[in-house]
C-alpha cells in the first residue's frame, strides 16, 4: 500500500536515523535534524526508532492514504488536519483509507516529522533510507518529494492504539535556547577573548542555513593565527569559524572533512534544538565538559524512555 503526495511542501524528505559507516567515503549520516522528535513520532505509532518517516521543512505536505494507518506528527508547531479537521500533534491517530492528511506551516520551530505505522519502504541505499540531497541518494530517488509522487509503505501492523506524549515533554521552540557545547578540537587556535565571545553570545541564526550547516551572526570570535588547518574530519555539531569570526554549526548533511578551524562542537542531544531554530532567532552556546555532556545525554535518554504515556 502506498501514499500519494498531493502536494509536497517546499522541502519534504524521507529520513530514517541515517547512514552509518560511510563517512570514510565522504557520505554524511543524514537522517532527521531533530532526532528526538523523529524517534518520538515513530514510538507514538508503534514503529521501530529507525523506521523511515518524513521530515517537513517550514511547510508540510498534503498526503492521500490508500489504506488506514496510525500516524503521528511531532517537531515544529504546525497545523495538522485530517480531511479538513484539525488533529493533535505529539499524539497518534488513525487515518482512514482514502483519508487526506495535511501538515501546514510551522509557527514555531522549522521541521515537523510524520511517522506512519509500518514505515516508508523506499529502497535502502547503503543500509539506510535517509535522503542525502547533495549526494542524490536515499529516500525517494535521492531528492525531495514532489507533487504526484507515491511512497511505498510497509505492511500496516494489526491493531495499534492511541498514544500520546506526556504534556510536560512537549518542547517549545520559540525561545532563546542555551546549547551545551564542548570546546575542541581547535580551541587552541583562538584567543581567550574569542572563546569568551563564543560563550558570551547571543548568536542569531542567518537565513543561509540548511541541513548541511547553520550560520550565525554575533560577537566576533578572534583567532590567534588564521583560520586554515590541515584538513581533518568534521564531527556532527562542529562549530567552524572562518575569517569573518562568525560561527557555522555543521549538521547532519555536512561535508565530512574540511580545512577550517573548529572551536568546539554542539552536543549531540542539542542538534535538534539547532534544527528547530528559525532564521532571526537567537541561541547561546554554553560550555560543558565531556563528562557533564555524557551525564546529560544519559539523563535525556532516560527521560525519552518515559516520555510516552
Amino acid at each position, binding site marked *: 500500500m502506498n501514499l500519494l503526495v498531493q502536494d509536497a511542501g517546499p522541502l519534504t524528505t524521507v529520513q530514517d536515523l541515517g547512514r552509518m559507516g560511510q563517512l570514510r567515503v565522504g557520505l554524511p549520516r543524514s537522517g532527521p535534524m531533530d532526532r528526538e522528535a523523529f524517534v518520538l513520532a515513530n514510538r507514538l505509532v508503534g514503529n521501530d526508532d529507525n523506521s523511515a518517516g518524513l521530515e517537513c521543512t517550514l511547510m508540510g505536505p498534503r498526503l492521500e492514504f490508500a489504506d488506514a494507518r496510525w500516524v503521528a506528527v511531532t517537531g515544529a508547531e504546525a497545523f495538522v488536519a485530517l480531511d479538513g479537521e484539525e488533529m493533535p500533534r505529539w499524539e497518534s491517530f488513525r487515518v482512514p483509507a482514502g483519508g487526506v492528511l495535511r501538515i501546514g506551516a510551522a509557527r514555531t520551530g522549522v521541521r515537523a516529522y510524520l511517522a506512519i505505522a509500518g514505515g516508508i519502504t523506499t529502497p535502502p541505499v547503503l543500509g539506510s533510507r535517509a535522503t542525502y540531497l547533495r549526494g542524490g541518494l536515499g529516500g525517494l530517488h535521492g531528492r525531495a518529494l514532489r507533487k504526484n509522487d507515491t511512497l511505498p509503505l510497509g505492511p500496516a501492523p494489526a491493531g495499534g492504539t492511541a498514544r500520546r506524549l506526556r504534556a510536560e515533554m512537549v518542547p517549545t521552540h520559540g525561545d532563546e535556547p542555551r546549547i551545551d557545547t564542548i570546546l575542541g578540537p581547535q580551541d587552541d587556535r583562538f584567543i581567550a577573548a574569542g572563546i569568551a565571545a563564543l560563550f558570551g553570545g547571543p548568536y542569531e541564526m542567518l537565513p543561509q542555513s540548511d541541513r548541511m550547516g547553520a550560520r550565525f551572526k554575533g560577537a566576533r570570535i578572534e583567532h590567534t593565527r588564521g583560520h586554515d588547518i590541515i584538513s581533518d574530519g568534521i564531527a556532527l555539531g562542529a562549530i567552524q569559524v572562518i575569517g569573518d569570526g562568525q560561527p557555522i554549526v555543521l549538521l547532519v548533511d555536512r561535508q565530512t572533512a574540511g580545512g577550517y578551524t573548529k572551536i568546539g562542537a554542539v552536543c549531540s542531544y542539542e542538534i535538534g534544538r539547532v534544527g528547530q531554530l528559525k532564521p532571526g532567532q537567537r541561541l547561546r552556546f554554553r560550555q560543558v565538559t565531556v563528562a557533564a555532556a555524557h551525564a546529560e*545525554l544519559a539523563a535525556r535518554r532516560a527521560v525519552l524512555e518515559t516520555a510516552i504515556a
Partner: protein
Amino acid sequence: MIYPQPRFLPCGDLAVSVELADEISLEANARVLALEYLIRQRRVAGITETLPTYRALLVYYEPAEIGFDALTATLRALAAEARPEVLPPARHVELPCCYGGELGFELEAAATKLGLAPDELARLHAGADYHVYFVGFTPGLPYMTGMPERLNIPRLVNPRTKTPAGSVSIGGIQCCIYSVESPGGFWVLGRTPARLYDPAAAEPSLLRAGDTVRFRPIERAEFDAIAAEVAGGRWRPQVTA
C-alpha cells in the same frame, strides 16, 4: 613532526579526534590508516565509526558503552602499535585521463603560470604516482599528493562555481579529482571518464584511503568510448594489489 604521544581532542560528546602529527606526510597518514585498521581488526567495543584524514583519525563512540577515559586509554595503546607495516599492501588504481582541450580547460593557463609547455605539464602530471590520503569533502573525492615539486601552483584566485565531475586538477602540492559537480579552486588539467562516486554501487567510492593512483593519458576518442562504457555500467578501472 609525528607526536611522541597522540593528542586526543574532543569533537562534541560522541567523537574524539586522535591527532598523530602536525604535518601532511606519508608516514603520518600511514599511521592514521594503521590505527583505523587496528580498531577494525580488534573490534573495539563502543567505537561506532572512524574517519581518517591526513594526520588525524576521527573516532565516533557510544558513551554508554565506553567512557572517554577508557576510550583514550585504548586508543593510546593501539596508536603505539599503529605502524605502517600493519597495513595490508596498497591498491594501485590506473585512471585514464584526457588532458587539455575542452575537458582540461585550464591546462594551458596552468602551463603558462608554471612556465611549461602544456604537453610537458601533462607529461609530468601523468608521470607521477599519487597517494590517496583520504576520501571526503564531497562523496568519493580523493585528497592526493605525489606531483613533482615543479608543479606546485597557487590555487585559483577566483574559484569556479561549477567544476564537472571527473575533473583532474591541481592546487598547491595537491592533486584532486572532483567526484561530483561542485565549486572549485584547483586548476583543471584534464578529465577522467571513470566514475569516482556511484551511489548505486556496493562500494560507492572508487578510491580508498591508502590507494596509489596513476593517470594514463588518453585521447578524446578513447575518453568518449570509455565514458559510454561507464554509462552502461560495463567499465571498471584497472586495480592491482
